[in-house]
């Protein structure tokens, strides 16, 4: 569903990813892991059509990303960023309704099917009761869910999320990732999200894309564990990560 070939990303003279290729399938939840500053956000932004790339090609659902108009791209891929959005007086239904932008007319008015999509998206993330609440009166976790509902309302085959779990507590993190896994498997969506939670990546996801700068390795979870790459990347003098058990040992 997402394919990139010989992709080189970076800014200025700094190269983050050098000549990487991978194919992220539909109907599966894929975690993007890597140390801080190794280009997880940069990759997601490039795949969403936001960033500049230095070399290589990106195909979304079989189509070259450069050949897509902004609107066609918005019908193909949705992105949830790390930015915390809190606009006073903006109701949840309005935020989620913005996700319908590629399908509405110039005034942005929601027709029957748009309103139905908004209601369905809010229900999918368990926020149906919050439709008329404004975001300035909600917790971080609730806001995060609303932003995900907005991406769902966009009805794209591909959804990218940048560290969606970072503001959430432990139960909420698992709940959110379970939801993402369900959406990917039940609705056949291609969902790629970056995360620092290795335990979640290895227990709830179907495959893992690991950034080992400047390379990227994409493998099914079991193979990724066997490869030993995760231990090598996430261990230093102070800690050691055991991918098989998901435990962190202090040395």
């Amino acid at each position, binding site marked *: 569903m997402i394919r990139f070939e010989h992709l080189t990303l970076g800014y200025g003279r700094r190269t983050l990813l050098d000549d990487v290729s991978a194919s992220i399938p539909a109907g599966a939840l894929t975690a993007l892991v890597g140390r801080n500053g190794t280009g997880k956000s940069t990759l997601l932004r490039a795949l969403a059509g*936001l960033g500049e790339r230095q070399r290589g090609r990106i195909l979304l659902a079989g189509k070259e990303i450069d050949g897509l108009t902004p609107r*066609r*791209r918005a019908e193909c891929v949705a992105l949830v*960023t790390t930015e915390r959005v809190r606009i*006073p007086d903006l109701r949840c239904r*309005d935020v989620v309704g*913005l996700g319908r932008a590629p399908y509405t007319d110039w005034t*942005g008015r929601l027709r029957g099917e748009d309103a139905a999509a908004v209601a369905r998206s809010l229900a999918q993330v368990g926020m149906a009761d919050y439709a008329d609440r404004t975001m300035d009166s909600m917790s971080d976790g609730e806001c995060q869910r609303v932003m995900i509902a907005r991406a769902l309302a966009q009805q794209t085959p591909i959804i990218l999320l940048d560290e969606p779990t970072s503001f959430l507590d432990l139960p909420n993190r698992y709940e959110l990732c379970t939801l993402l896994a369900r959406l990917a498997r039940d609705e056949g969506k291609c969902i790629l999200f970056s995360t620092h939670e290795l335990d979640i990546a290895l227990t709830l996801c179907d495959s893992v894309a690991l950034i080992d700068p400047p390379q990227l390795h994409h493998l099914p979870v079991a193979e990724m564990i066997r490869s030993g790459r995760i231990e090598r990347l996430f261990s230093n003098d102070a800690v050691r990560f055991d991918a098989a058990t998901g435990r962190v040992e202090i040395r």
Partner: protein
Amino acid sequence: MMRHRIPLTFALLTAAVAALFVVDLATGSVAIPLGEVWAALTGGETAPATAKIVRSIRLIKAVVAVATGAALSVSGLQMQTLFRNPLAGPYVLGISSGASLGVALFILGAPLLGATGSAALSTLGMAGAAWAGAAAVLVVIAAVGRRIRDIMVILILGMMFSSGVGAVVQMLQYLSHEDALKAFVIWTMGSLGDVTSGQLALLLPAVGLGLALSVAVVKPLDLLLLGEHYARTMGLDVRRSRQLVFLSTTLLAGTVTAFCGPIGFVGLAVPHVARLLFRRADHRVLLPGAALTGAVVLLLCDIVSKWLTLPVNTITALLGIPIVVWVVVRYQSAS
């Protein structure tokens, strides 16, 4: 209650605009009873002097008040959304200052160079100079504002612009002849009443076009609430939308500043009043809401300024400053 809140608020605001419009026509140095105002407007029987005051002085002024209020408020709302900054507005960002500089160059600079022209030419020249000045400041603010989102930085930048413009204007004043100087000083006091019918013929279409452009960007503005990145992922051509917003703001704030002088705080404060009234953030509600609220506020300011015989921008400042303080306190405690 909640379901009917928005239509009800729109109805009340429209009624307020109509009522204040008539009161504005009746107030002035000569008090004219409402019945005679009506007669003068509809061509009924009144003294010719009364008819003249109502039709050719007060009617123009009231129309200018409505246009100015709507124009400044809508331009302020667009700036606040585009820069994602609750303190943005044409005056604070220095857009009015840019327009002032243009006007100063025109009023003070043209005579220095020995240029004189017909009334129509000077009307057009003044508007053109104000548009150019407003657009120039917008481009600079946009270049800086994209990198920096701190509320205070934008404010300080606006202040710097205003001070810089002040210095240049003082230089021009020092060099200028008495007549041009007087014309400029009176202009800086801000007045809704100095607009001639000839100027109105340029002001109304320009403000109308600015408002029409703002209506055309309601959907982009809604998307920009979430920021540029999100807007782009939802299919918005951000570059083009920003250009349309700038064009609209230049027309709205530039035109008003050219003919009425710098009128402060309306553009900043009125969108917040509209948000309080409507409790909504989407521009399909807020944009017409801000336009109506702005018309109400400026008609009120005009009526008060006539009672107290003070320049209208002193009234807008006294009304606007408490709202600005409230906004600063509210957003500081929220973050």
